[in-house]
């Protein structure tokens, strides 16, 4: 490790909020979750924020609660925590899909859900599932708390509405309605420990023979993870048919704006969006009928 910094390890959330309270930019002071992004970045760039506030082990920040129709993850809940909780299959199957293809065991044991959101990577594997599930995030500062739909959280490549003096403290989504299903698929160069080339998550809810709920989220095909809302409207409120699924898949492809990089060309990524959206919509719809 080359750059130096102050490492603050508060015992309580309030202390942590005071510590980051003075931060004007992420260079002044940044939260440290599991460090699986931040430590790697600091080593690669040789740069570090002036101070890091460790939040991964703050009391009350880790854990999964399901109550009153809402699933809530503490910010410091790890990817392994998601895999070890059998209830997740019921209330967020796409999150289980995302966790199973996430890094290797040691990183999963350390990586937090908040860190996955806050790193702002378009290839973050838990973000498409969270968008498909309709999640919101709670941001807290010494001055107060606000809840933001995850759909409005990202503003561009690695940028978001979170202020440097705010901590992401929890993530929540409504328990999916009966007769709904969610999925996530990660296209990588290999099965284990790969960076996502295209990530697709869908949630479909059926009621009285029509798609009452449709959310489609795309990863690694734009500056940030986003919902393919034109594609969603193709199916929403309609009885599903192969033609409509095909049309939605095509719309999703049109909404994708991927770049060429070392992992794949943009053209390939676009094509795969169509393939994967079609496949996941078919799988979810079939599982419901």
């Amino acid at each position, binding site marked *: *490790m*080359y*750059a*130096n*910094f*102050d*490492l603050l*390890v508060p015992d309580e959330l309030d202390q942590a909020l005071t510590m980051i309270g003075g931060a004007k930019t992420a260079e002044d002071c940044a939260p*440290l979750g*599991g*460090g*699986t992004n931040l*430590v*790697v970045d*600091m*080593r*690669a760039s040789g740069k*570090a924020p002036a101070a*890091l506030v*460790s939040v*991964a*082990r703050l009391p009350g920040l880790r854990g999964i609660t399901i109550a009153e129709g809402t699933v809530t993850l503490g910010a410091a809940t790890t990817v*392994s925590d998601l*895999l*070890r909780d059998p209830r997740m299959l019921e209330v967020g199957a796409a999150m289980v899909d995302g966790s*199973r293809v996430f*890094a*290797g*065991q*040691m*990183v*999963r*044991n*350390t990586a937090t859900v908040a860190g996955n959101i806050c790193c702002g990577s378009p290839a973050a594997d838990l973000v498409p599932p969270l968008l498909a599930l309709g999640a919101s995030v709670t941001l807290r500062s010494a001055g107060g708390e606000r809840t933001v739909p995850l759909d409005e959280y990202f503003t561009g490549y690695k940028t978001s509405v979170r202020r440097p003096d705010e901590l992401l403290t929890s993530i929540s989504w409504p328990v999916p309605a009966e007769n709904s299903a969610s999925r996530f698929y990660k296209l990588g160069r290999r*099965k*284990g*420990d790969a960076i996502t080339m295209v990530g697709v998550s869908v949630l479909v809810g059926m009621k009285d023979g029509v798609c009452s709920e449709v959310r489609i989220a795309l990863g690694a095909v734009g500056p940030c993870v986003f919902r393919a809302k034109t594609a969603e409207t193709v199916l929403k409120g309609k009885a599903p048919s192969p033609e409509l699924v095909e049309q939605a898949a095509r719309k999703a492809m049109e909404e994708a704006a991927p770049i060429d990089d070392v992992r794949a060309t943009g053209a390939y990524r676009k094509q795969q969006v169509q393939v994967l959206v079609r496949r996941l919509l078919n799988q979810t719809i079939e599982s419901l009928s």
Partner: protein
Amino acid sequence: MTNVKTRQLSVNGVKRTVDAPANETLLETLRRIGAVEVKCGCEKGDCGACAVLLDGEAVDSCLTLTGTVGERAITTVKGLGGAENPHPLQTAFADLGAAQCGYCTPGMIIATQSLLTNDTDTPDEADIRLALSGNLCRCTGYTKIYDAVLDGARAMREAEAAK
């Protein structure tokens, strides 16, 4: 070195007092104090050679800042057992040819121990692949490692049942 702090660590059950700067990783600290059974491969979370248990859960020590460890128990592969009193996984890795150069072995055994104690004591091949996908081996081709995990897991279950 700036921001040096004196910290108490519990390494394989022994209390150690170390002076560690804020930007030192647990991998650097452990090797500096002689725990060189913890290997340094990539220093970016890719290879798993540096894996240790923190309160029984495997983590990459190269991604862990020493200052965040606190009172958690650190266990290296030496803490599981040694030549005199080998752990069943160590015996299985040796017997089944799952270690060639041996550089990945400490991390493989730590990751396996974490799988067997935190996730399942009766892993199938899919469980093993999932649990070891963050551990790279340049020698064995993995097949013998998976065999050793299955064999070691069986030995551990038998030892548990005999208690």
